[in-house]
């Protein structure tokens, strides 16, 4: 046995090392837990280096940019070089400061106006492995960050905290295939699950083919996942097409649209209302109706007396109302004004065209008939320009 092992020493060691790692892997998968110690060591070791690199990068970039500017200016004019360089240096510095201040201000404003309790964080590294769908931020458990917390920007959701270490946290981005969040569409309130595609885009899954989702429509978090508070923008629909049993909805995540430098981690989420879609407020122009035969005469006898009265566009209901009004006028009856004792209108009477209303018949001895429900006239004609 010993000879056999020594003879196949390399393969034996290989199998042993693989076996040990398989045990490690099985332990994590079986218990759904992590070997935290190793990760904490690794992240804690890398975070200061990443921070230092980030700081050095910022300084070096600014220095190099300004240096190049100064060199170009020197070749052009020696006298103006220092002044121009100084101004550009100052300009560059101010621009950088302004950009930083703008971003910080935007985050601060968002943080102030959002009821959820948040903490700002800066992206310092991406996760190893080349997938580019997980990043490290410089806030960890010492800042109150915990696994599962939502990560957002003012533009939308970014991801969720996959693991929180003392000095940093790993954030799984919305574009990762293993990411999922409950979302609801803004217009038709269609619910679905937002999932990453691995290549910078997302999809909304489990939406029935019968549901109505439109391109350009926004999806907001529904709050069902207990990670993201309700009402945070998730993304905009870029394409919709029917699938096997569910719609295939492509969504561009709005939280990653403007790059990823500073983010907010939601420590205590508060649900918000999903904003309603605003109806078009612009007035709609309506052209005047086409002229009809005898429009002038009709205008005189129209129900409202307006130019639209009895036009060719009148509906059956309009014609009926006009007919009843003529009957009423012929009998000197005003619909809607029926004091007790008023004689009922004879609807069988057919008024001749052009007939002037005669005096009201005084039928004191006439037996009063039951009054039929008089059609209610209205002066509000929505199509009338007099309104």
């Amino acid at each position: 046995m010993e000879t056999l092992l020594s003879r196949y020493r390399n393969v034996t060691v290989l199998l042993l090392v693989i076996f040990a790692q398989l045990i490690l892997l099985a332990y994590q998968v079986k218990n759904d837990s992590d070997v935290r110690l190793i990760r904490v060591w690794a992240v804690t070791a890398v975070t200061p280096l990443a921070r230092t690199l980030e700081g050095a990068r910022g300084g070096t970039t600014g220095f190099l940019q300004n240096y190049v500017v100064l060199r170009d200016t020197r070749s052009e004019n020696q006298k103006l070089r220092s002044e121009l360089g100084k101004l550009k240096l100052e300009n560059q510095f101010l621009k950088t400061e302004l950009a930083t201040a703008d971003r910080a201000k935007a985050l601060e404003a968002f943080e102030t106006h959002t009821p959820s309790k948040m903490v700002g964080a800066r992206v310092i590294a991406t996760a190893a492995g080349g997938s580019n769908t997980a990043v490290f931020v410089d806030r960890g458990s010492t800042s109150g960050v915990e696994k599962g917390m939502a990560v957002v920007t003012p533009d939308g959701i970014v991801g969720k905290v996959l693991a929180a270490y003392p000095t940093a946290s790993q954030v799984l981005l919305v574009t990762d295939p293993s990411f999922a969040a409950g979302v609801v569409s803004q217009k038709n309130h269609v619910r679905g699950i937002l999932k990453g595609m691995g290549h910078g885009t997302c999809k909304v899954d489990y939406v029935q083919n019968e549901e109505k989702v439109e391109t350009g429509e926004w999806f907001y978090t529904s709050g069902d996942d207990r990670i993201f508070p309700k009402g945070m923008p998730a993304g905009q629909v870029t394409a919709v097409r029917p699938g096997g049993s569910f719609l295939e909805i492509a969504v561009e995540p709005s939280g990653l649209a403007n790059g990823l430098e500073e983010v907010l981690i939601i420590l205590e989420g508060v649900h918000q209302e999903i904003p309603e879609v605003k109806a078009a407020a612009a007035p709609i122009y309506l052209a005047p109706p086409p002229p009809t035969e005898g429009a002038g005469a009709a205008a005189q006898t129209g129900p409202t007396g307006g130019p639209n009265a009895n036009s060719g566009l009148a509906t059956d209901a309009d014609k009926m109302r006009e007919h009843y009004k003529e009957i009423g006028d012929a009998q000197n009856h005003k619909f809607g004004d029926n004091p007790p004792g008023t004689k009922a209108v004879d609807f069988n009477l057919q008024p001749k065209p052009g007939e002037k209303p005669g005096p009201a018949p005084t039928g004191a001895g006439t037996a009063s008939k039951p009054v039929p429900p008089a059609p209610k006239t209205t002066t509000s004609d929505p199509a009338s320009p007099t309104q």
Partner: protein
Amino acid sequence: MRYSDDHVLLHTQRETQISRFRAWVLFLVPLAAILFQVYVPLFFQFLAYLELPLIVTVYFALMRRSPIGGLFVGALVGLAQDSLSKNPLGMFGITKTIIGYVAASVGLRLDVDHPLIRLILGFFFFVFHQFIFWALSRGLLGQSMNFETQRTLVLGLLNAIVAVSLFHFLDKLKERA
């Protein structure tokens, strides 16, 4: 240019000479490769597909020509990479352990100082690495990942080109006898 078996395969004791490196090189180069992978893609996203930890593992395994040394280098680099990734610990560890072992075994038989051989090996080990990782993801984690052959081949070629340049640079860090 034509390479006969005499040029490609190793026969003599002189040719199988093991390259030695200083301890700091063995520590700092893989660390720098991992740091590169976690930091640089923040600003240049396309560089996320550059598998520097793999290239470094392959280099040390090929040059040291020790299967046990190679597999340990691979295991350590892989586990370090795992600890900074979203994967369970062991995925890159197992993958790079196998790569380290195979690379060292290949290094015993081939003249790995030649650029063409390095280019081919760089390409082969990248594709092999991606395949093992894909197989482990499906087999052990049950993830429904697709093996994107065309993309892998293109990235393999790019990584191989980078590997040849990096190997040339790392050759200068070898300890001289």
